[in-house]
């Protein structure tokens, strides 16, 4: 830019000036755009973050404080709210149930989903498209319609109100999405790396677990996070299929806790329970958000 301007100077003195003006105009329009977009982003962040901070703050207050001065800082930090929620409201037990059910389901669905997607994506066999479309149907089928048949099916299997029953349901619920996401991922992986593994002496199993699966790691991480968020927040399925109070998951416990104290609500403990429910999701998301963004772009711009 400056070189060109210097070259032109003898020919016309005005040109570089107008060039500079243009540049300045462009820069100022860039700046205006940046300012507006940042203002919008800040607004959006405030909308999202403030309620969360408010919940966090309120979880350290007493009920009286919350009702009389909802926006002030707590006069002293009542950590006992957490203890109350954890023990009195059984949040601890439900938390453990949630962890057991979601983590088991997650491991199973990732394993099965990856294997299923891999075979559908990379092997030719009769019935391949049929299986694929059945999976597609599974993805489009609203879970509400399946609730009643699911209930009786689990009852017949003797799995109603058991953790394995809920885990299996979660696996079935999350499998189509997992399979679809990984299907496109496995499709995009180079074919010759698989062939190189075969020539290096790997069988199908080893080629899958030691070569193809590690290559699909970014995709696996992304799906695992989506599944974790979805299953952790799952409410409808446990409400219908997991009615034994000892086996409740967090969402059920929360709902029951909120509605059980109609007149004498311990708001502080309630907010503490909410924080306990939300924090694992937030944590998982914050730790892996880079991965999610990365894997989506990797899937598209290979």
């Amino acid at each position, binding site marked *: 830019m400056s070189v060109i301007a210097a070259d032109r100077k003898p020919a016309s003195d005005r040109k570089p000036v107008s060039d500079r003006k243009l540049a300045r105009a462009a820069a100022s329009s860039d700046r205006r755009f940046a300012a507006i977009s940042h203002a919008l982003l800040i607004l959006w962040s405030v909308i999202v973050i403030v309620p969360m901070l408010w919940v966090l703050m309120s979880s350290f207050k007493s009920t009286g404080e919350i009702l009389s001065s909802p926006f002030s800082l707590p006069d002293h930090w009542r950590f006992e709210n957490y203890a109350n929620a954890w023990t009195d409201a059984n949040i601890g037990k439900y938390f453990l149930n949630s962890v057991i059910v979601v983590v088991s389901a997650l491991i199973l669905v990732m394993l099965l989903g990856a294997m299923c997607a891999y075979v559908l994506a990379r092997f030719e066999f009769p019935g391949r498209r049929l299986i694929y479309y059945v999976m597609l149907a599974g993805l489009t089928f609203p879970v509400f319609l399946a609730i009643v048949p699911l209930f009786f099916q689990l009852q017949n299997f003797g799995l109603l109100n058991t953790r394995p029953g809920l885990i299996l349901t979660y696996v079935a619920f999350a499998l189509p999405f997992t399979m679809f996401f990984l299907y496109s991922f496995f499709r995009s992986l180079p074919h010759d*790396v698989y*062939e190189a*593994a075969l020539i290096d*002496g790997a069988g199908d199993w*080893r080629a899958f677990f030691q070569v193809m699966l590690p290559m699909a*790691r970014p995709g696996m991480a992304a799906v695992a996070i989506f599944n974790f968020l979805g299953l952790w927040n799952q409410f409808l399925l446990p409400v219908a299929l997991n009615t034994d109070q000892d086996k409740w998951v967090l969402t059920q416990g929360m709902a029951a806790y909120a509605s059980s104290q109609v007149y004498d609500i311990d708001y502080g403990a309630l907010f503490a329970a909410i924080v306990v429910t939300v924090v694992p999701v937030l944590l998982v998301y914050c730790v892996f958000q880079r991965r999610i963004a990365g894997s989506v772009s990797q899937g598209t711009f290979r």
Partner: protein
Amino acid sequence: MATVTFDKATRVYPGSTKPAVDGLDIDIADGEFLVLVGPSGCGKSTSLRMLAGLEDVNGGAIRIGDRDVTHLPPKDRDIAMVFQNYALYPHMSVADNMGFALKIAGVNKAEIRQKVEEAAKILDLTEYLDRKPKALSGGQRQRVAMGRAIVREPQVFLMDEPLSNLDAKLRVSTRTQIASLQRRLGITTVYVTHDQVEAMTMGDRVAVLKDGLLQQVDSPRNMYDKPANLFVAGFIGSPAMNLVEVPITDGGVKFGNSVVPVNRDALKAASDKGDRTVTVGVRPEHFDVVELNGGAAKTLSKDSADAPAGLAVSVNVVEETGADGYIYGTVEVGGETKDLVVRVSSRAVPEKGATVHVVPRPGEIHVFSSSTGERLTD
């Protein structure tokens, strides 16, 4: 160390009636470097993949040594392959990439490490052993792919255009390295390329394929001097051989105003088929330019005494490569215009747009049947 035999090996892709590789018959000697070459879609890669076990064999057999491997999976064939895109495992370090096959074979860790380090030393990769393939240049990745093949000490190396992703200069130097490495290790190698220069410079023998059919297997020298048919003649050599269809006359063929003597048996073979013309192949370096004191012109008999000898070439482009000059011109033969390339000395190149007369040197012409394309002279 082993021989490799393609015994009428045939591959028909599902949904296609025409075979991609049709009755391929090649015997490759122990320690030989055989290059499969041909235009894209000729079946050269398919042949290699059949040998690797990555492609089914629909007919015939493939043997490595005395073992029939026709229907064995790749892992039981004791082969190593270098892929065009190298196919390195992206999540493994260079050392793990090279040692993967040994790890699967159950070789102990210390021995793997030792073999990998030996190979790395040969290939100048020692300082990169802990890197991931992502952090390597194209040439280094290519060497890792080579290393992965040599640590295994397999019976056969398979290479599928391993140099086509390198830049021109690196390609030439790597070409020599691969050839000398192969000679040193003495492992039977089958190498696929579409580049005839690569084929001619690297191979002990070259096999030319077209449309799934083997055209000729021979040493590079013989391939160049005695192409078996018109396709091989046009494919091998750069710039390509000039192929001109000319009428048969008494004792030879009529080349413009000159009569070039041709072996009687060859002419008889052509006329027995009912042909009145033959296709004459002349390499660019085997033309003499009449205007530049072409020695061959004086020895040939002329049709009309007052006209200059040979074919009149109007010069379109002159390329000077330093050592030589190449004339790219057009001639009129039998009412058709043909493109012709003639090599001349770089000290005496004609002007663009000029007309020169060329005659082939009598001993250096190749005569092919116009109807079947087969070679008639020996």
